[in-house]
């Protein structure tokens, strides 16, 4: 569960990124977080992954209090999250299997567990047949599916997808969003940050719109409309 209560965040340069944001995402939800550039979306993601601390208010993520979390506990908070980025962030010199396995090895999984789990994840994202390929041999959509498999492989409670379709054509974007919806249907909470109006409207999930550091709209089955954000 993710909970932000009256959260404010001001950076050292004086920029006020968030101004009293309150939101709650329950287990098993699929949420779109939309908003124009500089609206505070990235700041919310950084707060959830405990890269930064709030200036004011309270942030709880999967039972961890981000305000008071010890530095040594941050890795354990992050193990409850799976993060997917717009630019995939795959390791070019490793093949698909090893890119996914890398996330398991980083949290101390045994080779036996890796051998068992990675093929299952690759099957889930439809890339079993490309396990030995390197990222540059894959299309953008396929690379993003590898990134999703990597985010999922450690059984996170929440997947945070930061503009996951930003570098993809509409067809591949739809594939990725469908995959995230499928993952959500298996019980994982999904928070997707996006600008893709068509996709948001097509999936008709809960939509939280943020603008100028404030939540301006939060609707179940919402749409990406001009009332929600300026974009």
């Amino acid at each position, binding site marked *: 569960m993710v909970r932000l209560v009256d959260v404010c965040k001001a950076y050292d340069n004086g920029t006020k990124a968030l101004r009293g944001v309150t939101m709650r995402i329950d287990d098993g939800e699929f949420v779109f977080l939309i908003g124009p550039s500089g609206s505070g979306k990235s700041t919310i993601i950084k707060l959830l992954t405990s890269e930064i601390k709030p200036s004011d208010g309270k942030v709880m993520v999967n039972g961890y209090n981000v305000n008071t979390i010890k530095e*040594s506990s941050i890795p354990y908070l992050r193990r409850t999250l799976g993060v997917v980025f717009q630019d995939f962030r795959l390791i070019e010199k490793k093949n698909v299997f090893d890119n996914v396995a890398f996330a398991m090895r980083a949290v101390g999984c045994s080779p036996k567990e890796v051998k068992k789990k990675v093929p299952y994840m690759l099957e889930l994202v439809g890339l079993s047949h490309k396990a030995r390929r390197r990222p540059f041999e894959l299309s953008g959509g396929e690379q993003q599916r590898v990134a999703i498999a990597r985010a999922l492989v450690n059984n996170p409670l929440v997947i945070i997808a930061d503009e996951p379709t930003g570098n993809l054509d509409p067809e591949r974007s739809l594939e990725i969003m469908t995959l995230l919806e499928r993952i959500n249907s298996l019980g994982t909470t999904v928070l997707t940050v996006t600008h893709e109006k068509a996709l948001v409207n097509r999936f008709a999930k809960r939509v939280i719109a943020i603008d100028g550091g404030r939540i301006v709209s939060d609707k179940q089955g919402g749409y990406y409309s001009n009332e929600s954000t300026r974009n």
Partner: protein
Amino acid sequence: MHGFSSFAAVGVIVACLIIMGSFSLVAVNIRTAISELEKNNEIMVTLDKDLSEADAKSLGSEISAIANVRDRIYVSPEEYRESLVKEMGEEYMIGIPPDVFSPQYRVALEDISFAAETELILQAIQGVDTVRSPSREMSALLSVRRVVELVSIILTALLMVVSLFIMANTIKLATFDRREEIGIQRMVGATKSFIRWPFIVEGFFLGIFASIAAYFLQWAAYERFSNDIGKLADSGVLNVLSFDELRLPMLAVFVLIGFLVGVGGSVMAIRKFLKT
């Protein structure tokens, strides 16, 4: 780039260790020479040749009365000749008349650092011809040792700082090479120690490799120079320690410094990197 940097780091550590090691070896040799002199903290007091045996023996109580004298042994001219024969062989004595030798006293001192003062008192005794003490060699060696030890300590400190800095830079380059992997590791929840250990292992191996390479080079250099200096040793001027006697402590010190520089440099670099 990282490979070249590792090579450079090993090279610098090897050079630093050899410079440090060379000064330490000189210091150890001087220290040993001083200890040898300290063991022989005897003053040879040669009496006038014309002194009768009874007069010579009577000087013993006068010598014993000096505060810094612990013991004195009378050596008759015959005994002295015999000791020379024993040490150098009968052929050394061919052509030397038996009456050329004088009676002597071997005087053991309480404190070698007052040898020069004691020498002056002995010299003043009626019937004493010459006084030979190791005080001059001793004070020369002591001042050389002081300088060498000081230079050795300053160099060790400076070179360790340089080595640490070079090693930290090498590991910093390694972390830069792998910054994307580290970013992903942090994102998926790897602990800092998990991220840190491969770099520490790398630093450890670089440090140990450098220390072992430096050890063998130092050994070769020492053997080469000690052979030359050994020729002087044969003439009795200098006594150079064999590397065999220094092998284990030298290896231990080199490996310890290699370990400290390798691991210390890595810890410094990765700690800074993980903070950012």
